[in-house]
């Protein structure tokens, strides 16, 4: 049966269609939505349009005029009656802490006892925050539909009185250092994995086939074991009263009060993640090393090179594509890893992923979570491009 070229293309498209749809629905669409959410936040703007309208003409230097106070006050009271003020107040609160109680308290007070005279005086009487210019600036900013504030926030930046970009106060800077730590820990994990995986991959690639099969099986077993099981096993092994500490105390290397803190800190994260990610380093290395003929090392020896000379000049350069592939894979996976650091990381072993999860699940600041995710994505892509320039992705093979 002869198919024309277009028929073949059509058939190929149809065969790939289910997967394309699946990926589009479960991956691309959520990704796009999250990226949109990181810059677009209409909730406040939709809830208090009149207030924002009034503030639009305000110069931001002195307090707004009586008219603005009245419009805002009435809108708050009306929203509160519909029980919709809470979500607006939460969002304003993210820009200026204390604003949630200020807004809800004021709305309650004004609703119970509508001011006869000046709304301005009544609101300031209800809460002194209303006499601050910054309060009104915060409301104005919270009302921006398209906003860079999540990104600024994610980079420990803020906007000053006239909208200029300033650093967050010292005690509120967390994300940049967390990001740096994430990259540092990931680099350490990658390096340790490489050092552990390289000899094993060598063994696998150059062992006689029967033995290589068994060894490969041992490497693959972790893939068949739940990630949770593997991570919690590390808790059993590493904790203060755990197997390793007990052993060290029993054989007398450590005194009872010298037990090592190997878990619920950065050490725990690194140990457990190296274990989890090791196969992703071994397999690409193995697949490259298998293609390097053992004859090459023999040839180098017969040409007079010592083992290290042969390794450094002949074997290592040929294994680089595998090193590159494995390292990139492990590094990128570590950067976004969540479960393991969450379980064994304690306070110092947390990665940026746990912050994203926190903002997704606890603080419900999805915009910030999205911004953090987007920054991570951008950094990984950048890294990939640099790496591609240095190593050449066409030289890299995964298997």
């Amino acid at each position, binding site marked *: 049966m002869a198919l024309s070229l277009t028929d073949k293309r059509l058939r190929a498209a149809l065969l790939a269609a289910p997967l394309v749809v699946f990926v589009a629905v479960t991956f691309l669409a959520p990704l796009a939505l999250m990226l949109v959410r990181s810059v677009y936040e209409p909730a406040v703007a939709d809830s208090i349009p009149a207030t924002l309208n009034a503030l639009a003409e305000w110069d931001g230097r002195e307090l707004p005029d009586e008219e603005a106070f009245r419009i805002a006050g009435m809108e708050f009271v009306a929203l509160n009656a519909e029980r919709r003020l809470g979500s607006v107040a939460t969002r304003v609160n993210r820009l200026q802490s204390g604003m949630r109680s200020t807004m809800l308290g004021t709305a309650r007070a004004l609703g119970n006892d509508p001011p006869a005279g000046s709304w301005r005086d009544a609101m300031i009487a209800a809460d002194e925050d209303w006499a601050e210019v910054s309060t009104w600036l915060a409301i104005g900013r919270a009302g921006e539909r398209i906003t860079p504030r999540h990104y600024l926030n994610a980079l420990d930046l803020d906007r000053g009185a006239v909208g200029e970009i300033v650093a967050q106060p010292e005690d509120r800077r967390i994300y940049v250092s967390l990001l740096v730590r994430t990259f540092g820990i990931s680099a350490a994990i990658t390096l340790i994995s490489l050092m552990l995986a390289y000899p094993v991959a060598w063994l696998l690639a150059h062992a006689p086939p029967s033995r290589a099969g068994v060894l490969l099986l041992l490497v693959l077993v972790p893939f068949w074991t739940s990630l949770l099981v593997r991570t919690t096993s590390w808790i059993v092994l590493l904790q203060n009263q755990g197997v390793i500490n007990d052993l060290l105390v029993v054989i007398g290397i450590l005194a009872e009060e010298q037990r090592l803190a190997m878990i619920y800190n950065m050490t725990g994260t690194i140990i457990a993640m190296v274990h989890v990610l090791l196969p992703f380093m071994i397999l690409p290395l193995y697949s490259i090393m298998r293609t390097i*003929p053992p*004859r*090459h090392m*023999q*040839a*180098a*020896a*017969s*040409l*007079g*090179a*010592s083992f290290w*000379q042969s390794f450094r*000049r*002949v074997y290592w*350069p*040929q294994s680089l594509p595998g090193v590159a592939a494995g390292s990139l894979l492990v590094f990128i996976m570590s950067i976004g890893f969540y479960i393991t650091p969450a379980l064994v990381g304690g306070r110092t072993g947390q990665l940026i992923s746990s912050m994203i999860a926190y903002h997704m699940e606890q603080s419900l600041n999805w915009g910030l979570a999205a911004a953090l995710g987007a920054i991570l994505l951008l950094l990984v892509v950048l890294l990939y491009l640099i790496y591609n320039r240095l190593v050449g992705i066409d030289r890299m093979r995964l298997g």
Partner: protein
Amino acid sequence: MSIATDTQIEFINISKSYDGKTMVLPNLNMSVRRGEFLTLLGPSGSGKTTCLMMLAGFETPTSGEIRVNGESVHNLPPQKRDMGMVFQNYALFPHMTVGQNLSFPLEVRGTAPDERARRVQRALEIVRLEDYGDRRPGQLSGGQQQRVAIARALVFEPGVVLMDEPLGALDRRLREQLQLEIRSIQRELGVTMVYVTHDQQEAMTLSDRIAVFNHGEIQQVAAPETLYEEPAREFVARFVGDNNLLRGTVRSVDGEVCKVQVGEGLVEAFMVEPLEVGDQTVLAIRPERVVLSPSMEYSNTVTASVDDMVFQGDHWRVSVTTFNQPEFVVKIPNFIGQGGILPGDRVRVGWTVIDCRALPDESR
């Protein structure tokens, strides 16, 4: 062509087993002279590579000793043995240029850069690849890659060059061309060469001497002409060139000549080693030494019936049945033409005593 006769390499009572059970080489004794081209020839699995690998230091003998220049090399690792090796699949380093490949053995020896460049250039000239120094091995043809491999094994001027079926992967024409090149390079440089092949034609072309291997045992070591003209063992007679083999029993012995009963007939043969009346023997007769319609001076003449005739260019290959055995081959040089015979004809064929060698029967 003069060959220095002092011994450079000796295998003394070498045995080798990979698994501790089967002996790949039971007991090997062999020596290589300085400046000679020695070929290890034998069928697949006969232990040629094993021999070479032990000499290069990649395998250790199970027992026995290998000496180079009179000294045991048992404790010398491969990189200290000063032997250039050419592997079957070249084993060129793909991430280095041709020039870097050649420069590598000099760099690890700490040769000065200008000397290095000079020697690399010289080695490239020897294999006629002067303009290819900047290419990568992947950009060369198979023949060119093999030349690079040879140059790399020569560039550091090792005392011995080892080659394991270096031409195995090449087509016939290229193989023949490279054989001649290897031969002239070796003669020119005077380097000692140990060469492995299972191609007897190649062994003949290249070697000063050939060691014929079978089942890990050396059957005969001799110059190509000697090996061809005077095979000492049945295996050699079979493996080197074509031979008609007739089995029979010794009936009488007279000096170096014996009479052997083959089927109903009696054949006069030259004894390679002393045989006694009643011994089983194998007679080896080269097809090109058999003549049709022999004259009186041929001591052996028999009647045969022609089964088949095949034209082979330089000769006709005539297969006949004689002594009730088919597949007795006679080669008629084509200047005689077809010899006026046709399949089905009955003819007389004959050969001299000296062309009929009685070898010990190894079939039992």
